[in-house]
C-alpha cells in the first residue's frame, strides 16, 4: 500500500518529466490535490500536540504518524489526528527511528525534551527529511554546529520553533532597525536562570512509559514522574533551564533586533556580586546584552535616542513602529507556514538552524559562565572558548550508549 502513495517529491518529478509547462520552481499554487506534505510528529507532550494542531490546520499538510515514549501522550496524539481527519489511519510509534524510516514522510516535527533534538533531527536529515524542531533547538553548542552542518550537507530545510522572535517581538525589530532609538548599545533580556543538577527521588516506572527511551542520550537516572510531565527544564541533563527555554525566544528576539543573530558575543561575564551585577554579554561592536534587569517586561532596549520595553516607553506609550518591511516569514501562516513554504522552495526559513544555533549558543554560553562562575572569552567565528580548556569541556557532552550524532 505504501508503495502506491504519491509523495510530494515523486509528484514533482513526474510533473517535470511529463511536461515543460510546469513552473521552473514549483510553488504552492502548482500543487495538485494529491500533493501534500506528509509529516511525522515526534514528542507528543502538550507542546507537541499543540504544534501538531497548528500544522494540521494547513490544508496541504497531512499528519501521518505520531511518536512518543509515553503511552498517554501517544494515544492523545493519535486521537487528535484521527479526530481531525475522521478516520483511524494515524500510525503510532514508540521509537522515532521507525518514523524516520518511512519513505512517505517528507518532514518531521520534533517536540521532545531538548536532549533528544540533535540525535533525532540529524538521523532524520540523513534520511532526507526536513525538520521543524521546537526550541531550545540544542542542548550543547557542538550539537548546534553539527545539526547545521548536516542540514547544509543534505540541503535540508530546518526550522527552529521560536514563533516569538518575529511574532511577538517584531515591534522591537521595527522600532530599533527603523532607527527610532538611535544607536542601540544595551539590551536587557528577562528570562529564567540556568539549569543544574537533578536530585528527584526514585519512583517506580509506571506501565506505558519507556523510561530508557525517554532518557535516550542523557545519563541514566531513575524514573520520576515530574520529568515526563514537562518539568525537565531546570535540569542540565535535559535542558538549559530558563536561559534556553524562554532565552531561545527572547535572546533570539534581542539578537535579531540588534542584527547580531548571525554572530556571537566576544565576552560573557557572570555576575560576581561586586562589579558585574548580572550576566553580561559584550559583542564586537560594543553592544551589551544583560540577563535580567531593565524595567519594562521581558526585553528592553536602550539607544542613544530613546529606550523601549514591552509596554512601550517608560511612560507606557507604545508608538506605531516605522512602516518598513523587515525580511521575515515567507509564505502564509506564521512560522509553520514559513517552514512549509521553504519545504517547497528549499529556501532557508526565518528560524533557520544556523540562526537557531547562534541564539541557543548565547544562552548556553551564559549557562557555562554561570556554572563555572568565571568570565568566558568566545571566538564567534571558530566557536571556541579562548584560553579556558576546562570551560571548553562544556561545549559538548558524551552521550549515553548507543546514541551519537557523528
Amino acid at each position, binding site marked *: 500500500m505504501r508503495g502506491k502513495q504519491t509523495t510530494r*517529491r515523486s509528484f514533482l*518529478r513526474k510533473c*517535470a518529466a511529463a511536461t515543460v509547462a*510546469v513552473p*521552473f*520552481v514549483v510553488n504552492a499554487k502548482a500543487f495538485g490535490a494529491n500533493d501534500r506534505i506528509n509529516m511525522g510528529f515526534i514528542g507528543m507532550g502538550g507542546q507537541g500536540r499543540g504544534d501538531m494542531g497548528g500544522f494540521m490546520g494547513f490544508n496541504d499538510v497531512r499528519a501521518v504518524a505520531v511518536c512518543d515514549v509515553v503511552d498517554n501522550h501517544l494515544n492523545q496524539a493519535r486521537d487528535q489526528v484521527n479526530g481531525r481527519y475522521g478516520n483511524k489511519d494515524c500510525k503510532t510509534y514508540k521509537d522515532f*527511528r521507525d518514523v524516520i*524510516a518511512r519513505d512517505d514522510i517528507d518532514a518531521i516535527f520534533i517536540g521532545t525534551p531538548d536532549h533528544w533534538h540533535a540525535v533525532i533531527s540529524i538521523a532524520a*536529515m540523513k*534520511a532526507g527529511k526536513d525538520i521543524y524542531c521546537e526550541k531550545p533547538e540544542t542542548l550543547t553548542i557542538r550539537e548546534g554546529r553539527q545539526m547545521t552542518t548536516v542540514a547544509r*550537507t*543534505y*540541503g535540508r530545510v530546518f526550522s527552529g520553533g521560536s514563533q516569538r522572535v518575529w511574532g511577538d517581538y517584531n515591534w522591537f525589530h521595527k522600532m530599533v*532597525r527603523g532607527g*527610532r532609538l*538611535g544607536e542601540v548599545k544595551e539590551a536587557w533580556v528577562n*528570562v*529564567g*536562570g540556568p539549569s*543544574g*543538577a537533578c*536530585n528527584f527521588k*526514585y519512583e517506580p516506572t509506571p506501565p506505558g512509559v519507556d523510561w530508557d527511551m525517554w532518557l535516550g542520550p542523557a*545519563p*541514566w*537516572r*531513575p524514573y520520576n514522574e515530574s520529568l515526563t510531565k514537562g*518539568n525537565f*527544564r*531546570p535540569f542540565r541533563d535535559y535542558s538549559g*533551564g*530558563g536561559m534556553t527555554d*524562554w532565552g531561545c525566544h527572547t535572546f533570539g528576539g534581542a539578537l535579531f533586533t540588534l542584527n547580531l543573530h548571525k554572530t556571537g558575543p566576544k565576552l560573557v561575564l557572570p*555576575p*560576581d556580586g561586586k*562589579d*558585574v551585577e548580572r550576566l553580561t554579554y*559584550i559583542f564586537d561592536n560594543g553592544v551589551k546584552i544583560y*540577563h535580567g534587569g531593565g524595567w519594562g*517586561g521581558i526585553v528592553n532596549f536602550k539607544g542613544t*535616542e*530613546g529606550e523601549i520595553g514591552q509596554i512601550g516607553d517608560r511612560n507606557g506609550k507604545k508608538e506605531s513602529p*516605522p*512602516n*518598513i*518591511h523587515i525580511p521575515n516569514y515567507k509564505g502564509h501562516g506564521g512560522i509553520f507556514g514559513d517552514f512549509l513554504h521553504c519545504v517547497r522552495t*528549499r*529556501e532557508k526559513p526565518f528560524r533557520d538552524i544556523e540562526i537557531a544555533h547562534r541564539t541557543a549558543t548565547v544562552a548556553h554560553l551564559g549557562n557555562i559562565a554561570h*556554572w*563555572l*562562575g*568565571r*568570565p568566558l572569552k568566545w571566538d564567534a567565528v571558530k566557536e571556541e572558548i579562548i584560553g579556558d580548556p*576546562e570551560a571548553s569541556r562544556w561545549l559538548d*557532552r*558524551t552521550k549515553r*550508549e*548507543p546514541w*551519537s550524532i*557523528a
Partner: protein
Amino acid sequence: MKTKILFLVLTAALAGSTMAAVEIDKLESSIEKLQAYEYDKTNGVDLRWVESQIALASADNSVRGKVETKLIDSLAKAKTNDAKQFLCRQLRTIGTSQCVPQLASMLTDKDISHMARYALGRIETPEAGNALYKALGQTSGKIKAGIINTLVQMEYAAAAYDITKLVNDCDKDVAIAAIRGTGRLGDRRTVVMLQRMRASAAKDMQVEIDSAILNCARRLVEKGDGRSAVEIYREYYNGKYPEHLRTAGLRGLVEASGPKAAAILVEAIKGDDPDIRRNAIAMMALIKDEKTTDTFVELCKVVPADGQELIVRSLAARGDVSAAPLVIEMTGSTQENVRLAALEALGDIGTPQAIPCLAKAAASATEREKQFARSSLARMRGDGIDKAFIHRINSGDSGSRIEVIRAIGLRLDCEPFATLHEVAKTDADDGIRREAIISMGRIGKPSDLETIVKLAIAPKSSGDRGAIKQAVSIVFNKMQNKDDQAKPVLAVLKTGPDDAKISLLSLLATPATANALKAVSAAVTSSNSKISDAAIRALGEWPNPAPVEQLYQIASSSTNQIHKILALRGYIRLTPLTKNPTACYVNALKLANRNDEIRQILGGLHHAGTRKALEIAESYMNDQTLKAEAYMAAVKVSNVYCWEDRTRVRAMLDKIIADAPNDGIRNQARNVIRKMDEYKSVIASWKGTKSFAIPGVADGNRIFETVFEPEKDFNSKDIVWQMVLPEFEGGGKLDLEKTYGGIDYCCAYLRTTIHSPIDQEARLKWRVDDYIKSWLNGKPTKDGIIKLNKGANTFIVKVGDSGGGWSFVCEIVKPDDSRLEGLRFER
C-alpha cells in the same frame, strides 16, 4: 566608561584575582559525605554548592590537585552508582590524567560505563583516549558502541583501524557506531570498503554508510585530496540516489570544484530536476567571486519568473553589489513576486544607482512594493550611499523626494540635518516640507530640539505645525531630562507668537515638569481664548493627576462655558490616575450637565470598581437617553467588583439580564455570571507585590524559600501593592503570568482582606503551579481548616514559580466542603 570597567573586571577575573576562594575543608567533607549519595538523599550536602565549588577549583591550581584526589578517592570508595555518577560528573569538570585510571576501571561496568566516558570524553589528554581504546577490546554491545562513539568524538585516530573492522559487527549498535566512526576517522580506502558494503546493506544501514562516505569525502577535501572527493560527490550527484543524497553530492562538488563550481551549478539549475534546481539556486551563495556573479546574472535573465525570484534572493545572499544592475532591472518585472524579491534584494546589494528606482517604487507602486522599497531604502549600506541620499533630497519628482527624505529619517545619518532644515523652511511643496520636518526629528539630537521647536514660530504654512509637534515628540523620546525637554518649548511660550503657543502648549504634557505645569496653568488665564482653551486641553492630557484640582476648579467655577466643558472632560480623563477614583467620579457627576459628560463618567466607572461605582451606574439605568451606557457600565463594574461582593453583583447582573436594552449587554452580563459561578469559592480579589527573583538562580524552590523584604514586614509602607488581574488559565487557576509576564524562577506576595459576617471555621483549599505558603491575620497558615474572625481578616499568600506556567487558586468553603456564603473579599 562602563565598558572600560567591565574590561578591567574581566582582566582581573581571568587572572583569578577576583574569583571567590574555594572552601576546601567544607568541600572535601561534602565530597566524602556523598560517597553514599542516592537520589534525594544527599546526606545534608547541597549538590549545587558542591558543583559550584568544583567549578571554582578547576581554575585554581592551588587546590585543583587536592580536590581531584579527593574525588578519585571517593569514587573508589563510593557505595552507590548514584554517588559514582555524581563524582564522575565532577571529574568531568576538574579531572586530569590523574583520574584516568580510576575512570578506566569503570568502563566495562554496564551500569556506570557511560559516566566514566562522560568524564573521560572531555578530558583531552592522551591517557583518556588510550584508556578508552584499551577498553574497546574488552566490551561488547551497547557499551562497546558507546566507547567507539567517544573515541570518534575525541578524534582518536589510532583506533581507526580497529573501528573499521567493526563495521560488520553482528551487534547493530556496534556496527552503526563503527560506520559512523569510519566516516570521521577513515580515508580513501575506507570509502571503497563502504561503497562495496552499501550494495548489500539494509536501508537503514545505507543511510549510515552514505553519511560516512560523505564525511570521508569532506575529510579528503580538508586533507587536500579534492580529486578523490570530487569522484565521490559526482557518484552521488549523478547516480540513482534519493534527492537528498544527490543534493549532498552537488553541494560537495560545488565546494570541491574551485573555479568549475559555477558551471556545475548553472548546469544543475538548467537541468530537468526541480528539486535539484531549487537546491542548486540555494547553493549560489557558496560561490562569491565577481566573475561568477556575471554567470548567475546571465542565467537569471533566461529562467522563468519563479526561478528569477529565487535567484534574485540568492544573489542578495551572496552580497555582491555587481549584481545590482540586474536586480534594478528586475524591479520592472511583470511578475509581482520577482519585483518584490528585487526590491528586497536591493536592501542588501543596492548601490547609489538603486536609490531613484527604490524611491519611485516607494512612492507609486502597490502597497506591498512600497513597504519593501521603503525597507530597502532604510537598510541599504555601502560606499557612497549616504551621500547619494543627500544628493537626492532635492532631485526627482515630489513623491520620490518625500520617500528619500523619509528614508533619511530612518537611516539615522545625522549629516543631512542642515539640508533638511533648509527644505523644511523653504520648499514650496507642503508634503516635502512636512516630511523633512519629521525626518529632522528622527535624525535630530537632543541638542537640535531648539531648532525644531523654533520652526513653529514662523512656519512656511500653519499646516506645518502638526509635523513640528510630531518631530518635537520624537526628539523628546531621545531625552532623559524632563527639564531639558520643556526648556525650548517654555521659551517659545514666553516670547513666541500666539499661534506658536497654541500649537506647542500640549507638548508640555510630555515632560510634565513643575515648570511646565506652572506655564500651562498660567496660560489658562490668557486673554487669548484660543491659548486658554489649548492650556486647559493640555492639562487634561497630563500623564499624572497633578492638575486634577485645577481642572476641578475651572469646571466648577469658570464663567467660560467652553472652559468648563474642557476642564470637566480633562478631570474625568485623569480620574483613573487618582488615588480615589470613586470620589472623583462623584465630584464629576455633580458638575456634569451634558449627556456626553455623563457618558464619559459611565465609561470610566470600572476603573473605580467599587460598590459606589455600581450604584452610580444603576442610578442611570432608567434614563432612556443613557440607558445603554449605564447598563454597560454596570456590567463592566460588576466584572471587577464581583470578586468583592458576589451577592450584590449577582443581583445586579440578574437585573441587567432581565432589563438590558440589547443582547450584547445581556451576553456580557451572562459571561460575568459564568465566571462567578465557575470560580464561586475562589478568591480572585488580590493585590500583589512586584515579583522577586535571584539573578542567576534557576532554582524555583530556593527562590521560594528566600525571605524577601515584604515577608519581613507585610505592613511596611515601602511595599507597593498593585492589582492582580483576575485572569484564569485553562486549569481554573489564577494566571499570574497575565499580571507579571512570562517569567520563570521567581515569586510574589499577594494580599486580600476577607470580610466574614461571624467568627467561623472554614476550609482553605489551594492548587498551585509551583509553590505556595500563606499567612492569615499575620500568622502562617496552611490549607485545611482555618479560623475566620468576624470582620476583616488579612490573608497573604506567597506564590513561587520554577519555570513554565505560574498560577494558583485559593478557595474558601465550609469545613464540610460545601459552599460558604456571605464572605466578601476586598483588594
